[in-house]
């Protein structure tokens, strides 16, 4: 067995390895294929981000238009400041609103962008002012219980009020 045979097979081996890594990186992982898309960064402040994570998608009308880049707590306002990278080709008006939604019933959370009517567009560094926080399940349940309880009280009150009127 001479050197050339070894070199050939080892070369083939290494090329196979690189090819499989490339396959895994491009076809299997969430790396956006091709050129890194240009993005611009805007921020939005939320009372509660729920389970939102960095790299979560930012969608408008269900289509992915960007990614969550950063999540920080503002020490002055105690609100969560979420930085999102929106792809350059998508422009949103300055009065767009951002809300935190859940994909499916128990799925991952993402940021939904709803465009507004303003002529001026968001630029890098701008803040989205209209935000709607995530639905936290406990708050939802306690709200539901509370409203149900007050409903009963009202209906009890009205029925009690209606009864003597008879």
């Amino acid at each position, binding site marked *: 067995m001479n*050197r050339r045979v*070894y*070199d050939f*097979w*080892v070369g*083939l*081996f*290494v090329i*196979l*390895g690189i090819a*499989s*890594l490339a*396959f*895994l*990186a491009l*076809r*299997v*992982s*969430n*790396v956006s294929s091709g050129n890194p898309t240009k993005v611009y960064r805007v921020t939005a402040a939320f009372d509660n981000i729920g389970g939102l994570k960095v*790299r979560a998608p930012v969608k408008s009308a269900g289509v992915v238009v960007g990614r969550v880049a950063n999540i920080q707590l503002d020490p002055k306002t105690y609100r969560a400041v979420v930085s999102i990278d929106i792809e350059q080709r998508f422009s949103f008006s300055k009065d767009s609103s951002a809300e935190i939604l859940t994909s499916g019933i128990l799925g991952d959370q993402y940021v939904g962008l709803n465009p507004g009517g303003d002529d001026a567009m968001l630029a890098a560094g701008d803040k989205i002012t209209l935000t709607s926080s995530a639905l936290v399940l406990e708050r939802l349940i306690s709200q539901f219980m509370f409203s149900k309880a007050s409903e009963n009280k009202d209906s009890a009150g009205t029925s009690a009020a209606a009864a003597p009127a008879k």
Partner: protein
Amino acid sequence: MGNPFVDGFIKIGFAARFFLAVLWQSGTAFRRFGLIIREVYFSGVLSLVIILVSGLFVGMVLGLQGYDTLQRFGASEALGVLVSLSLLRELGPVVAGLLFASRAGSAITAEIGLMKATEQLVAMEMMAVNPVARVIAPRFWAGVISMPILAALFSTMGILGGYLVGVVLIGVDAGSFWSQMQSQVDLYQDIGNGLIKSVVFGIAVSVIAVFEGFDAPATAEGVSGATTRTVVTSSLVILGLDFILTAFMFRGI
């Protein structure tokens, strides 16, 4: 001394010193890169068959079992995610590591042990050539280089196997198989960590294989015992390191 614990510590200490000696002599090994290439052929290329075939079968089984479990929850479109994450994070590095230890690790141990038994290593020393630099270090680095490549190939074949069974045979939707996979598999978290694991396992298996060969008693039973020890120790170390690495890497998720 006889006490197994003390003997064990002595052996580990000797192994650590040996490992440092191998690293120290590695400069010479890299200057004679042809030696390393030759060893990559024997450790890596000759392990290709077992890795590719095993990867395919593991992936196919994952496809079958994964579908069976997922469809109970109506989540059969997540099959791609299940197969790819299982392979990239765990099965790829670990199973490829175990197979590598059995096939290439034992071969390295046997070869070095035999060279020791037939006085080839001593002969080399007497010819003023350092056997650690010429014989041991190339085999060590060949193992470290081969392991990540083999793990990546294992994972790739596994995913293709899962695709074969899930989409082609069973009928899971091809589009959701790949799109869900692509949205859930992260380049750094999953593929990157899997790669790091395979490099760590490669280092572990190579050190153990090379050391056991060097330390083997110069007899037939000695060499065969050393070969067995290589496979057993490597397997245990791989599984143990896997737990530790997984705990560090995937805690946040």
